[in-house]
């Protein structure tokens, strides 16, 4: 069911738009439309109702956060529409706004993450599956902000690493691969983390992410 997922792409710079289209097509996605501005994006999303949208934050006509606004607008018209927002820079404020419109099928990543094609494609699939994907930079800042007088301060360095990966939206298998440890070790860390933070443990990957994100107040 992963093959041939339909994607709407929004990016105003031709070089990047063509690059992304090539990358997505080569990875088995079907790019049904690519647009280069906000209003057309809303239109394309509502018309095509794609499996996932990949959207640049900065788009014409305002060249500010047009893409983000368009994505949020489209998600009010088509609730749950999976959107992965890409940007040259990440802001917690934007992550918060994006998540405020529904916490499933949302992603927010730095454009740099495209470098690692496999991980990027995996992120697009996770968003299409209704998952939540946050950039490590956003998560890192959230964790460092919460460092003082907070149960997070009681976590070991390894547990913090695991927690960061959980908050980014990785699965247990993904975390195990990223840290080069066994699945069992990941399970162990996660149950420790959830005990220390007094959060309800959950087998469901995404529910787990959401618990952590609301804990981090985002």
């Amino acid at each position, binding site marked *: 069911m992963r093959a041939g997922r339909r994607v709407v792409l929004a990016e105003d710079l031709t070089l990047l738009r063509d690059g992304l289209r090539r990358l997505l097509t080569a990875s088995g996605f079907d790019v049904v439309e690519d647009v280069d501005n906000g209003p057309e994006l809303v239109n394309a999303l509502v018309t095509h109702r794609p499996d996932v949208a990949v959207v640049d934050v*900065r788009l014409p006509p305002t060249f500010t956060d047009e893409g983000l606004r368009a994505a949020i607008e489209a998600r009010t018209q088509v609730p749950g529409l999976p959107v992965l927002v890409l940007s040259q*820079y990440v*802001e917690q*404020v934007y992550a*918060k706004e994006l998540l405020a419109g529904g916490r499933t099928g949302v992603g927010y990543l730095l454009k*740099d993450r495209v*470098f690692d094609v496999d991980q990027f494609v995996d992120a697009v699939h996770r968003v299409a599956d209704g998952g939540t994907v946050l950039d490590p930079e956003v998560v890192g800042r959230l964790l460092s*902000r919460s*460092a003082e007088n907070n149960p997070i301060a009681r976590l070991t360095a390894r547990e913090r690493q695991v927690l960061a990966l959980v908050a980014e939206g990785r699965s247990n298998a993904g975390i195990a691969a990223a840290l080069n440890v066994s699945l069992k070790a990941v399970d162990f860390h996660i149950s420790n983390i959830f005990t220390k933070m007094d959060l309800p443990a959950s087998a469901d990957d995404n529910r787990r992410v959401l618990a952590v994100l609301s804990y981090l107040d985002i």
Partner: protein
Amino acid sequence: MTASEEARPGRIALVAWSALLSVSAVLALAFGPALVVSLLLVPLRIGVPLTNAVFGGLRGLADLHRLWAVRVLGQPIPRPYRQLDGVPPIADPATWRDVRWLPVNATVGLALVGIPAGGVLLGTFGLGTILVWALAHDGGHGRAALVLMVTIAVLGGTWALIRPAMRAYGALLHWFLAPAETTRLADRIAELTETRTEALDTQAAEIRRIERDLHDGAQAKLVALGMNLGMAEKLLVQDPAAALRLLSEAKQSTGHALAELRELVRGIQPPILADRGLDGAARALVMASPLPIELLVELPGRPPAPVESAVYFALTEILTNVTKHSAATSAWIRIGYRGGRLDLMVADNGMGGAHPYPGGGLHGIQRRLAAFDGILTVASPTGGPTIITMEVPCELAAVSS
């Protein structure tokens, strides 16, 4: 003691003042000959200090009149003298306006200021005359009635004229003793020249810094990247494993270059400020801060981009100070717009003792805000709390959403 309370001084008090001021207007003429004599003595050693003493005395007299105008009439008269830049009294145009004021004060001034005292004097004299006549049983009733009527008219007229006359005298004082428009403009030009020079210097230094950062950072990384790619291209067939290593190095190098550029862009113009204005950017700062910060923003529009940027960077710097040095456990920020001024306040419950010493961060902010006629004030007693306020005059543009 507000000006409005004192705007209607008692008439009796004004009569007393009027007598005093009349006498002083006449006596002050003595400064004329004193000045002439001291100026003639300038070739001798004694002349210069003597002249300065005469000018000092004259300024003292003028200051007393200024004080009187604000305390009694509620009409503030700013001091015009240029003391800060070390101008000697003789070269200060305000000194010569003081000198010109003397004859005017002794004529027009005396005429105005003499009305209340003179009127009362005349009235008293009239009443006295009637009294003397009455006691002496001298003269006719007709004459006495006439004098009485004139006396009543004089006293009534004085009663009605006391306040307008004194106000007119206040206006006369203001005309001569407040800073002349040219002085004000000269000061303003000096101030603008200084802040403009600083603004240009700061800008040039910023551009140099950006150039250096690009040169040593992103540019150098792109060169290395090109080299890696070139080598990978050569090795691709003979040694695919080495080529792969070079390619992944190249990828890493690209990531670093991007991160550096992102930081640089943030330092020039943070994207969130461009996207969301001061409100959104302040919100982002608050979210990123390790301290709990209460934020209140009430802006009916967006300030001009240069003001927005200057204020944003000032806010960033102040918050960094709060986090690093104040030992505060909470802070609050208020951003508003009142009376044509963007108005910011940052307060924390830390240990206080912040001070805009030369070369320090707060002093730097003061200088940067000065380019917009903005000011920064610090209230930070030892032991805390610290309250930093910034005010920048500007127009707001309507927000289009």
